[in-house]
């Protein structure tokens, strides 16, 4: 018995000691510049096909710099999780990829980011070289925290022009009523009117973003984001939800959209194989189709703006989607000057040309000069004009809110579409954010 008491005391003691060490370890967080690697500037990016341009930029930068940039690519699906778990430690990147808005709001609040206003003062092109509506997405409390990189990704209504023709539809719908008519015609033609990757949840959210914007204008969501949750219960909010319900009840999305994903090729294949007429999707859908079925992407795929809703307050040219990706700089970086130099590459002609060549659409003011070099110049120009002329570009809801809101938003939009919750249920969920 004595032995056992000794053992448990010993164990308890060890546990307490270890716990103390562990907590001291994680509580320490951050640290000063000197605890960071010497002569290295770590740049964390979302790992995907765009990385080859970033690698080229890094190689170019390293040719002339003593401080070498190290590119850390983090596999896409885990990006936000990994970033959030390392950003307040000594292994945090010096410069990192993000979506602006809510994706960096918590980092700004925790005082982890370097405001870029001093950089901009020294080199005004870091701000002036980009489209203002895009640059603003990474401004928080009047300070700039991000420089645009990669491209803009507005959400558009994609369609299969052959399917539309067979159903007797000449042009994509310009208004909500036309969309409802088209839905009836497509149903009569025996196809699913609109493909929806409901299992991914964010494609469902795209319908909310546009219908709310068209019905109530950009003000409603902005007010909600600023903390006025009452707007979700406003007449306009209920009207928008009513419109969505009308579309769902008309059978626009078929019955099995909750089992379909965009990310595994399910919903885009519905569109390309002629089993659906429309799909609301981000501009990357073109690249997805080009990759899977080049013939379809070049000849059959068509694209248009989200239809206008009669009597709605929102400008019919307003856009929603991912405004852009950004590079932000960590406050504890050891080499702020080198970081500024690296960011300057983001408006260079070479960067813009390389991005366009792989199908991304950068938002620099000089992008327009190079649009002819795109793999599909017509598509690139259409998109660029949409972004340039949009009175407002609504950042995706799940990016505008901080990451902790994502699950709530995604669950609410998908439950509303499947009929698990009604208007009141949706309003209550959004008010809980």
């Amino acid at each position, binding site marked *: 018995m004595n032995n056992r008491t000794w053992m448990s005391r010993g164990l308890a003691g060890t546990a307490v000691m270890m716990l103390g060490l*562990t907590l001291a370890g994680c509580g320490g967080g951050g640290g000063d510049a000197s605890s960071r690697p010497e002569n290295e500037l770590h740049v964390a990016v979302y790992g995907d096909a765009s990385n080859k341009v970033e690698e080229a930029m890094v190689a170019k930068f390293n040719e002339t710099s003593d401080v070498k940039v190290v590119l850390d690519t983090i596999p896409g699906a885990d990006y936000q999780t990994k970033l959030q778990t390392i950003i307040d430690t000594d292994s945090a990147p010096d410069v990192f990829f993000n979506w602006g808005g809510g994706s960096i709001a*918590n980092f700004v609040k925790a005082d982890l980011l370097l405001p870029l206003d001093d950089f901009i003062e020294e080199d005004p092109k870091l701000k002036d070289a980009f489209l203002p509506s895009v640059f603003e997405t990474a401004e928080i409390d009047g300070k700039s925290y991000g420089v645009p990189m990669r491209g803009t990704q507005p959400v558009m209504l994609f369609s299969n022009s052959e399917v539309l023709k067979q159903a007797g539809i000449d042009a994509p719908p310009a208004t909500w009523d036309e969309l409802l008519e088209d839905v009836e015609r497509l149903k009569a033609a025996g196809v699913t009117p609109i493909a929806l990757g409901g299992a991914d949840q964010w494609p469902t959210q795209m319908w909310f973003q546009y219908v709310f914007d068209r019905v109530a204008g950009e003000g409603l969501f902005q007010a909600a984001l600023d903390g006025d949750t009452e707007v979700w219960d406003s007449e306009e909010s209920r009207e928008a939800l009513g419109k969505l319900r009308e579309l769902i009840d008309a059978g626009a999305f078929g019955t099995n959209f909750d089992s379909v994903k965009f990310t595994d090729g399910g919903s885009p294949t519905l569109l390309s194989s002629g089993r659906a007429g429309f799909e609301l999707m981000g501009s990357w859908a073109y690249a997805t189709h080009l990759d899977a079925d080049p013939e379809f992407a070049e000849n059959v795929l068509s694209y248009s703006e989200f239809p206008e809703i009669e009597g709605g307050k929102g400008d019919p040219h307003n856009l929603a989607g991912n405004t852009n990706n950004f590079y932000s700089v960590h406050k504890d970086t050891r080499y702020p000057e080198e970081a500024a130099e690296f960011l300057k590459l983001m408006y260079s002609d070479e960067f813009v040309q390389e991005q366009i060549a792989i199908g991304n659409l950068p938002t620099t003011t000089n992008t327009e000069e190079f649009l002819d070099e795109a793999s599909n110049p017509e598509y690139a120009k259409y998109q660029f004009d949409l972004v340039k002329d949009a009175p407002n570009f609504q950042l995706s809801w799940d990016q505008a809110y901080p990451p902790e809101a994502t699950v709530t938003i995604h*669950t609410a939009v998908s439950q509303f579409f499947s009929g698990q919750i009604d208007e009141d249920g949706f309003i209550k969920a959004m008010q809980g954010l």
Partner: protein
Amino acid sequence: MTTLATRRQAGPGGSTESRPARSGASSVGRPGFAWALPATIFFALFALVPLAAVAVLSFTSWSGLGDPEFVGFENWETLVADPVMLKSLWLSLLFIVLGVVTQTPLSILLGVWAAGHQRNRAVLSAIYFIPLLLSSAAISVLWRALLDPNFGLPGQLPWLFGDGNLLGTQAGAIGVLIFVGMWQFTPFHTLIYQGAAKGIPTVLYQAASIDGAGTVRQFFSITLPQLRNTAITSIILMVVGGLTTFETVLILTNGGPGTDTTITAFYMYQEAFQSFDFGVGSAIALVLVVVATLISLVVVKVSGYDKMNSSLEGL
């Protein structure tokens, strides 16, 4: 336990002889605490310390940025009032029960069948065990593609699957997860039962044959009782596995439709690593630990496993 062992060693000679026997054993180097030290250190480092850290974290609010901030019982109050948490516990329970009910009979039948000596059985068993070699993620991706409503099996067999909205309804999504779990884990449990069935002495079957028992009777009167302890081991593994099912839910249903397949382990991940609320996530983790411990204790008590009776006693 000590008394039990003592009594057994003592044998018919009575308790007086047992004491010298015990001290004699320890003088030839009975394993002391030092022997358990490496295992104890590893267990403390990788199980107890994280557990304690999780317990502490469950009383804090922490997003991974800055320092955890103590908030008392706030996370626990949130959890108690959270309908999703309660629902997730019921769902976990349902997953465990359905998992055990579907996998156990199948694994016993397959395991006993595979324990035979025929050559074809060895070959077929090898094929059955293939799912065992695949990672959960690969299995989930595979079934996700196979069950695509438009381009998978449901699209080809509308008479069976209807509109193919398997993952869009609660019953369908749970059915798919249970089925995939069965496909994935039955081979493992089959392997356990096969080993156990091979260990049943043939004399028992010979005796039964002489008594005129047929194959079915032999199965129920000899094989099943002999597999009792194996069944308990297997069921405990299924229960623990069911409680911690995660990858299949993440990839196949993402907890949906809505929160209809958000089981506790997945909810923990969602709160901690998608919503970055490590406080609530840790609280859910602790609930899981407590529930798993309780269930294991109940299974061990009810089954009499703690008495460690050999099923071969008397042979």
